[in-house]
């Protein structure tokens, strides 16, 4: 599968990249986010929310598993870390086939529920502020999005 890498030097750059990505998304799109604690998964999502015109503070969804925000498109922000090994289905289909954008942090814990076509994003720690972002699009729609985003 095709992978595209990009290095961001600052938190603001990471947010801006996500903001640009938001402009290219359509209802029902699913983005998975992987990366260690503190890599910047929630930071990336904050940028995405900005791009979707969401005014409310996007805070971490770890405890509640899902947080929903209203914007030009609704944003469903999930952190499924707490579902590790539980085989819980909290109604994923309704989110993934819904009218909004779904972002799933620690998505590998719900591998079986994820839609086939999606955009996998991995955020890797380079140094204190710098990150390596790897985009792995699955399906034609996400391929063209990543090509347009990274050019």
């Amino acid at each position, binding site marked *: 599968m095709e992978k595209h890498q990009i290095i961001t030097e600052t938190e603001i750059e990471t947010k801006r990249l996500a903001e640009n990505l938001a402009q290219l998304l359509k209802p029902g799109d699913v983005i998975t986010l992987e990366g260690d*604690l503190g890599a910047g998964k*929630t930071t990336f999502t904050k940028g995405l929310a900005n791009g979707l015109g969401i005014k409310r503070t996007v*805070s971490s969804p*770890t*405890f*509640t598993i*899902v947080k929903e925000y209203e914007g030009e498109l609704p944003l469903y922000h999930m952190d499924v870390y707490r579902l590790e090994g539980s085989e819980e289905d*909290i109604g994923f289909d309704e989110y993934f086939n819904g009218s909004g954008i779904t972002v799933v942090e620690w998505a590998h814990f719900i591998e079986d529920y994820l839609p086939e076509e999606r955009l996998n994003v991995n955020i890797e720690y380079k140094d*204190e502020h710098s990150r390596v972002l790897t985009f792995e699009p699955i399906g034609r729609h996400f391929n063209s999005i990543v090509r347009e985003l990274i050019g």
Partner: protein
Amino acid sequence: MGEFSMTKETYILGIETSCDETAVAIVKNGSEIVTNVVASQIESHKRFGGVVPEIASRHHVEQITMVLEEAFELSKLSWDDIDAIAVTEGPGLVGALLIGVNAAKALAFAKQKPLIGVHHIAGHIYANRLEQEFQFPLLALIVSGGHTELVLMKEHGHYEVIGETRDDAAGEAYDKVARMLHLPYPGGPHIDRLAAEGNVTIDFPRAWLEEGSFDFSFSGLKSSVINTIHNAKQRGEVLEDKDIAASFQSSVVDVLTTKTVKAALNHNVKQVIVAGGVAANKGLRNELVNKFADLDIPLVIPPLKLCTDNAAMIAAAGTISYHQGKRSGLDLNANPSLILK
């Protein structure tokens, strides 16, 4: 309202299913618990090993009827005694919230009782009124796995969020640092215990944010803990987990208590109350007690069983709405991102 209704007792049935717990309670006059049943505490569940997170709505569906029956059985009350049904309408997990909301709507319709939607955080605040009467204006510090907020109340039923977290909730920061230290979930109590054994040897950052802001941020602290552990490992140094825990806790407690004190003085409050699961943290409790003892502002910290999610707090908050004439229609819907106001 005539004199007769002034002297009549008010019994409100509360239902809470916003996250992990399926809970039903009956509260008298907004301040006295008649019954407070939480599914994970029911005897028949203990053989399954106690608390399992009830995040799936399926679990709530299985339990709601049983919990409801248990609440009535223990209360010795009947439906005739109940004045209204209060239910958590948000925020929380939509699938979980829907079970409570739909159960409440069905009961309100079948039993012809008024229906009252309650904000989960208003519930956490009103858990304190089950212990002590409110004095206004009051300041509430809500600290839990999902929330870190400062709420100003000038009268019953009116809430002004004057500060909130911009990233991780305090409880989440605890859980994430616990993950780094390979402690089990939820990590808060483990960090609290370790912190008591360790020393503050690392100067972790404190996010004060802009001058005069009562908002919080714990994401930078989390990153700093991660970097510190990472860098020490690369240099071959060994950091004691208990010292990391003590240093981390010291930063969290310092920010939480300092901002709460500033907000209390700034708004001239007559009472400060603490709510949410992290209110059980000994380091936080001790420091709050110390700081407010010097200021002559009464501080209320509820017992642990009222800090965690329960339905008595929903019934207590619902009682105020009931007396203020606030009612929800049968079109009440679960709102996962409900705003407190």
